[in-house]
């Protein structure tokens, strides 16, 4: 005698894929899948955090000098923007779970706008660094790495790099290489996140998600929070590093 282990009453939701027994199993798989993916992301960024840790402990003065030249105001504003976007994302997940479509779509759009705002501010910062000759290497043509050095006793010029005692321009270039690698990789993740949000907005407007089936919103929400948390680490490590040196 062979019994059928499938519970028949939950069949029928249009979003249930054929190889799952029920919606609960499908949601569990999706969420676990995203958590596992985020573990790989931690390891991916981990390689760069290791390089940062190593060179920061080897060249503290150079890293502090380079860090002091980053725009702390824009960095702080961006941190706020991202934390706010995490809040709107969490609200979007909540409204999906309780089945309120209009606030759900509104929150998703707000999250997208905040995410794009972050990328815009980041672009302004990158352009400032380009203007100040702080792009390492020869990959970007036009402005090779050649920062103007702020001399002691001269009036303060924000476009000039103030080198602390013991710092060297070469090691400052190393800092900026790591800065662009880490923030660039973070920005790439933000761009992918913006694409995923656009997908969520389109399918929310078509009424694809309901309290029974909301795992795409939840899973992409997890991704979005992860990308935010990476920035929460990057901001103090890169921007606030030099604050206690020579100020």
């Amino acid at each position, binding site marked *: 005698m062979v019994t059928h*282990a499938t519970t028949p009453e939950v069949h029928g939701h249009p979003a249930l894929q054929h190889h799952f027994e029920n919606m609960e199993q499908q949601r*569990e798989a999706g969420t676990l899948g995203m958590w596992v993916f985020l573990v*790989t992301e931690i390891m991916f960024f981990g390689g760069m955090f290791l390089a940062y840790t*190593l060179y920061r402990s080897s060249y503290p003065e150079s890293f502090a000098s380079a860090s002091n030249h980053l725009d702390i105001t824009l960095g702080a504003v961006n941190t706020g923007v991202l934390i706010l976007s995490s809040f709107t994302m969490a609200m979007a997940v909540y409204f999906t779970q309780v089945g309120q479509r209009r606030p759900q779509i509104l929150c998703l759009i707000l999250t997208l706008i905040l995410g794009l705002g972050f990328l815009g501010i980041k672009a302004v910062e990158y352009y400032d660094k380009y203007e100040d000759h702080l792009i*390492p*290497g020869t990959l970007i043509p036009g402005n090779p790495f050649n920062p103007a050095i702020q001399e002691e006793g001269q009036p303060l010029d924000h476009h000039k790099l103030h080198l602390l005692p013991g710092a060297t321009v070469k090691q400052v*270039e190393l800092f900026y290489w*790591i800065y662009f690698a880490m923030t660039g990789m973070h920005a790439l993740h933000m761009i992918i996140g913006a694409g995923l949000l656009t997908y969520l907005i389109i399918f929310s407007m078509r009424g694809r998600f309901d309290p029974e089936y909301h795992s795409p919103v939840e899973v992409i929400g997890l991704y979005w929070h992860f990308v935010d948390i990476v920035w929460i680490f990057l901001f103090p490590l890169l921007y606030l590093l030099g604050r206690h040196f020579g100020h």
Partner: protein
Amino acid sequence: MRAIEEFEIPAPSRVNYLNAQYGLKSWLLTKDHKRIGLLYLASITFFFLIGGIYALMIRLELLTPQGDFLQSTTYNKVFTQHGIIMIFFFLIPSIPATLGNFLVPMMIGAKDLAFPRINLLSWYIFLLGGIVTIYALLVGGVDTGWTFYTPFSTTFSNSYVILTGVGIFINGFSSILTGLNFIVTIHTMRAPGMTWFRMPLFLWSHYATSLIMILGTPVIAITVLLLAFERASGVGIFNPALGGDPILFQHLFWFYSHPAVYIMVLPSMGVISELIANFSRKNIFGYGFVAFSSLAIAVFGFLVWGHHLFVTPQSVYAGMIFSVLSFAVAIPSAIKVFNWTATLYKSSIQYDTPMLFALGFIGLFTVGGMTGLFLASLATDVHLSDTYFVVAHFHYIMVGGALMGYLGGLHYWWPKITGRMYPEGWGRFSALVIFVGFNLTFLPQFVAGYLGMPRRYHAYPPEFQVFNVLSTAGASILGFGMLIPLIYFVWSMRYGRRAEANPWHLPGLEWRTPSPPPTENFEVTPIVTWEAYEFAPPEETEVVGKFRPELERS
């Protein structure tokens, strides 16, 4: 619940996963894990042939002491490309992406992997990475060695490092996605009654492998990416001109690439556990120890990378710790070997082809593992570093271990995969030829290496010639041995004897469905009420040879 003997094998239906749909499109757009497994099988066989041709060129060059067949620059490219193709495009995907893909859902009683579309995507990513790498080889190749050590790879090499790096970077994601899929599938898709400790050991080893894939592969991805950007931009974090440290590259590289060895050998150990238990018709000795030793290998494997850096300016204290930890990996490995051997004790062994490969594995893996201890010792490693001793050691693990398990598993599950039997006589013959050819190739290299023959040179002093002649002769036998299964596997797909559902008469879940299986694996979702490797009900074995007073009385 039902007892085991009530389980009925459904009558073989004419529709199975192979004939459910026809045409190229039904294969290229398939979401069926079994078909994707076959797509992987075809692609990695292709890469294996390319890697094999490079191996042949290496052995031909080394037949004579002078560099007469290849120039030194060509030779550098040939051994580099042999390594890159064999490691990234054959060994790492070999068992997980083919047999694992096919069997993980079947062994837990699921209809498919948790993410079928991601599974197909992983094959396309693999293919894209492969095409980029093959393109890099065609336009000029790469000569850094598969290890890409800086600063040679970033500054001095004149070959296609960036392009090859991009190929490996892309390929890494296919590995990550496969690992992710397995972990989620094993956690969430097990059939009713399939508890963790009822799972076949094949699944435990694949779970451990998947952990390494998701934890290690991202690190090599970012490392290769940083390397490529450094080469492109002229400066970077491995560049001493900025205060960067080239040794950092070696740390990051081996953080993945040492555990990668366990990505290759752990699935093979899973296959061997299946083969040993099933072809001895006996429950595996110490199931829990074998299962957890897989996880232990995965964990320890991440803590030993520094033994590749014993001859760099790595701190001597770090070296001592890495040495001790490397010795520690031998413990879970030895647990497996001893438990397999204990399983064989007083069992009824069947010497079918898969079992021959499994027994070969135990011997070769033991040699490979024991010689690893020489390299994990700080003092002997200085003498043996960068010699043919190292080459012989890791070929005993990668070919003698990983490849033997792969071939054994392929024979074992071939009737399930294709619905046809391979020719048994030819199978046993090829197992023998491969075993002999392999040992003849690599045993002499231990001696040559110990006597001081360095690796990665196209010419060598004449006193090493005798070892190299033996080695090249062995490689020819090995290559011939590899061609035999290739021919009869293809032959058997059309002309092989039809296989019944359970040709080996085994209790595993994958044998309780027709061969080849239907698209959804099982006609109904199975309910598992038995332990793994449960060959006979306990009461039946207990009465044999025992005095039973109640029988005497009547």
